[in-house]
């Protein structure tokens, strides 16, 4: 039970950081009717989660760190609800072509980024298999 509270705490901290990062990108990158910031966030977050998942094939991380990063930070940084809202508003206020562009760019981009991240992460993990992550700090 104590471990579960730790995990939940790590997820909450990661979620708060990811959400704040997303908010600041939204405010600073929002320059036309296309929600560029949300595209960047969903693609980058998918890459990072892919990378982490690939890395974890070869490296052992403590449970709280895995969950804090994967579920909390990257999960909180990316968003499906804003994606749905954006697609709807582009469709309603602009054109269905633009909505389709946004949808397919996010979808295929995020899938590709997740796959690339996974491959890169598992290559780096395999190369550093015998190294301890504490050792790399020395």
């Amino acid at each position, binding site marked *: 039970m104590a471990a579960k509270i730790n995990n939940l705490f790590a997820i909450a901290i990661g979620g708060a950081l990811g959400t704040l990062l997303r908010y600041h990108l939204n405010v600073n990158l929002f320059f036309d009717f296309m929600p560029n910031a949300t595209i960047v*966030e*969903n693609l980058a977050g998918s890459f990072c989660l892919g990378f982490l998942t690939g890395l974890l094939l070869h490296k052992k991380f403590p449970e709280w760190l895995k969950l804090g990063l*994967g*579920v*909390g930070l990257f999960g909180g940084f990316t968003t499906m*609800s804003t994606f*749905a809202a954006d697609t709807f508003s582009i469709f309603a206020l602009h054109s269905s072509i633009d909505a389709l562009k946004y949808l397919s760019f996010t979808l295929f981009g995020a899938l590709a980024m997740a796959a690339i991240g*996974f491959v890169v992460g598992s290559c780096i993990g395999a190369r550093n298999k015998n190294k301890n992550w504490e050792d790399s700090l020395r």
Partner: protein
Amino acid sequence: MSTVLIALGGSLGAALRYVLSSVLSARNSHKFPTAIIAVNLLGAGGLGFFISYYYETITYSFYTCNIYLCFGVGFFGAFTTFSTFSLEAIGLLQRKEYNYFFLYIFLTIFGSIVLFSISFMFFQY
């Protein structure tokens, strides 16, 4: 002030997603990832209701309105996730579950857009 509200909503959303998805996936031993579908659809529908209900308050000032920052950006934003969705879809593709792969994408993407639209219109029309 806005930083605290966003962080609060984000941490609650992420923690609730974890709890709900682990409860749902514990009940379901099937290889199809229903838990994240449920979470994303629930979150997209929830955001629709929320924006619809507070439409007058939050229009044209999304990023200065505290209630939108806390619930819209924070809670519903962090409750739903795109990264886990892409990873699970790639996992289905890797295991050559092509039918599940297309079903998963279709249900999540069109489901969340349709649910958002329906719930958004709820208080509007």
